[in-house]
């Protein structure tokens, strides 16, 4: 037994050492250029954009489906689109944006439906990557469940640094088309407001619909949103919750799970902008995933959002500039 335990501990120590080396290797060029690094730019936008502001909080549906210029022109508010990826998890999106909220801000949270099911709200492996490579100290700010979820991704993150292809420049081959990762999912693909705009000139691709969500409903996601509202209001800002633009076929597949979310949000007294049905989109407006819109789609979705904001404004609260 003694030999077994010694050998096992030695093996594990070697494994931990390999992991530590991986963590300490600086971010590769590919990683630094990826859209996840836009966090740095978006943090700066949130910090430096002057009031009056409209702050959009969500995942990639928020960055791919909003045309902030239209928002600015219509509402006379300075837009800050903080959306990067749903894989960062709702809890991180909320907690991270909170520090940047100022009095008078109009904050619109637009989570993907999956955020309310399973463990999606705690983030996938993108979160540990973003934090470790941009601000490792933020690991300490994560909540318990988030932290345990992210620690499970630590080995994967660390060992990904050993992928040599990340360090090599991509060779342009005449016959080989660049992938979406190489064109769209880049830090430089966002415009000055934080909208993903690189794909606005590109052809849409065929998008397979999402199936129904089979995971359990996560009450903690609703609770976190509720807590966020209190904090936002304590800072003198106003919170609205809205629904993401979503491919209609995927919407049909997830209808009952979406209704459950809407019901929960209503029962908690959130000010909702529109309803899920209103933001479902036909396939021709979908770009590359059921949550991502083409330029035309983003324009339509933004107009709908403006209408809903005006409606909410006239019935609830007077917002300067509307």
């Amino acid at each position, binding site marked *: 037994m003694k030999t*077994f335990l010694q*050998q096992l501990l030695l093996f594990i120590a070697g494994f931990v050492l390999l992991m530590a080396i991986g963590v300490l290797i600086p971010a590769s060029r590919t990683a630094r250029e990826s859209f996840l690094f836009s966090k740095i730019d978006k943090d700066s936008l949130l910090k430096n954009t002057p009031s009056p502001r409209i702050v959009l909080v969500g995942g990639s549906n928020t960055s791919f489906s909003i045309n902030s210029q239209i928002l600015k022109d219509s509402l006379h508010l300075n837009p800050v689109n903080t959306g990067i990826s749903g894989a960062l998890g709702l809890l991180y999106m909320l907690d991270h944006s909170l520090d940047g909220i100022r009095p008078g801000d109009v904050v619109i949270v637009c989570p993907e439906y999956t955020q309310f099911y399973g463990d999606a709200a705690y983030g996938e492996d993108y979160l540990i990557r973003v934090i470790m490579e941009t601000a490792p100290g933020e690991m300490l700010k994560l909540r318990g469940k988030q932290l345990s979820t992210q620690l499970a991704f630590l080995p994967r993150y660390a*060992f990904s640094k050993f992928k040599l292809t990340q360090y090599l420049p991509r060779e342009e081959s005449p016959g080989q088309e660049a992938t979406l990762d190489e064109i769209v999912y880049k830090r430089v693909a966002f415009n000055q407001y934080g909208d993903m705009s690189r794909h606005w000139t590109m052809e849409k691709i065929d998008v*397979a619909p999402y199936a129904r969500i089979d995971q359990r409903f996560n009450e903690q996601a609703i609770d976190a949103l509720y807590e966020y509202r209190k904090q936002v209001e304590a800072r003198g800002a106003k919170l609205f919750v809205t629904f993401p633009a979503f491919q209609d076929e995927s919407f049909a597949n997830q209808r009952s799970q979406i209704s459950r979310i809407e019901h929960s949000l209503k029962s908690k007294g959130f000010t909702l902008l529109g309803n899920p049905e209103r933001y479902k989109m036909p396939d021709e407006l979908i770009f590359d995933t059921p949550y991502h819109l083409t330029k035309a789609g983003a324009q339509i979705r933004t107009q709908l959002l403006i209408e809903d904001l005006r409606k909410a404004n006239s019935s609830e609260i007077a917002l300067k500039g509307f």
Partner: protein
Amino acid sequence: MLFHTLDFAIFLPIVFVLYWFVTNRNLRLQNLLIVLASYLFYGWWDFRFLVLLFFSSFVDFCVGIYLGKENHPRNRKMLLWISLIVNLGMLGFFKYYNFFLQNFVDAFSFFGKKVEPDSLKIILPVGISFYSFQTLGYVMDLYRRKLEPARDFITFSAFVSFFPQLVAGPIERATHMLPQFHVKRYFNHDQAVNGLRQMLWGFFKKMVIADNCAIYANMIFDNSSSYAGPTLVLGALFFAFQIYCDFSGYSDIALGTARLFGFELMRNFAYPYFSRDIGEFWRRWHISLSTWFRDYVYIPLGGSQGSAVIKIRNIFIIFLVSGFWHGANWTFIAWGALNALYFLPLMLAHKNRDNIAIAAQGHLLPSARELAGMIITFSLTLIAWIFFRAENMQHALSYLERMFGGLTDPAAYREAWTFIHVNTGFAIHFLIAAFIVLEWIGRDSQYAIQHFSLGWRKPVRWAFYYSIAVIIFLYAGKEQQFIYFQF
């Protein structure tokens, strides 16, 4: 609790330490620890499931005690029936109630009668088919006087609930497993290292091959009407590797974990995709279930004795029951029927036991005849898997129709190539190829890497293990529940 989660990574070392360092002086205490740990492991899904597990164990323990005392044939038969009714009743209710109800409604509506009974929202307790069959096997062995009844409820509960194999097998035989709970276990270094090695291989199969294949198989099966023949073949291939690596990966982890506690479980897979005929495939696939059906259903029915009609009947019964065991859906029954059809010609020609030893034994490469046999058998299995994976019969048939209908169109091959280029990338194909090569090289062993690196110097051997571990973390697909938990 899933094997490939942080929860299990914390749970296992704690139980290991308590088992070997705290309870090791007292066998009963050690068995009690196994029971408690197993109930915690199982209750992690839903604590309500524990009631069923306890009830099933308790009933069969009592039936066993009475069977040990009773000599009157009629009373013995009655005791057997009690166990059958309780176990199959639980299984029937939780697994098949809504299926029968729906088919009942469909049958009535076919004759113009509209019936609207209340269907129940029944949660299927994970692994119920596995532990029900394990305890049923125990009672049937007692009934046949092949075994002495367990006199200690803790020992019996440990046998039924032993966490490594509780939720997805192997379905152990009491004759093999119970005696291991009766004797003091001693830590064996080689056995434990062998166990860890098998666990490592199991994690690789599950997390790298199965979970990645699952993504692409789901993508293709969920949108099969949008794809042409070659892409649908690709989908079936992905599913074939998914289900094999998912289930055999689970079995490897289960066997390896059991070894850490000094137990030897029965082997559940023996390289089924290298089978040269369908008879061999069924001797190598889910061995614990196949042999269970053979011993407790097929042989009592008369097995391969008797007229051709009886043989055909028995084969169909065993394959249909096996299909139905997998789930309450006509697709599983069709899968079973198809395998019966594959198997029948071999059995009627007395060729079903032609290939007993592993393919190309003692050679590096198979002969042309063996290779042809393997390709044909794998292709037949692939077609059957489509029924297994499809949502319903209509889905399966339209999948097959599109698959075979679209194989001659050159543009369809470009679609498959684009699917690989855009969706899968090449890493997963390389990993599957490496996996097949390793399985082929290690096909004489219980699992592929059992003896693979033993002759190497320690640093090289460890480097090999580190490589597998790194690949697991680096290329693990999105976490999926083990497929067989739902059965």
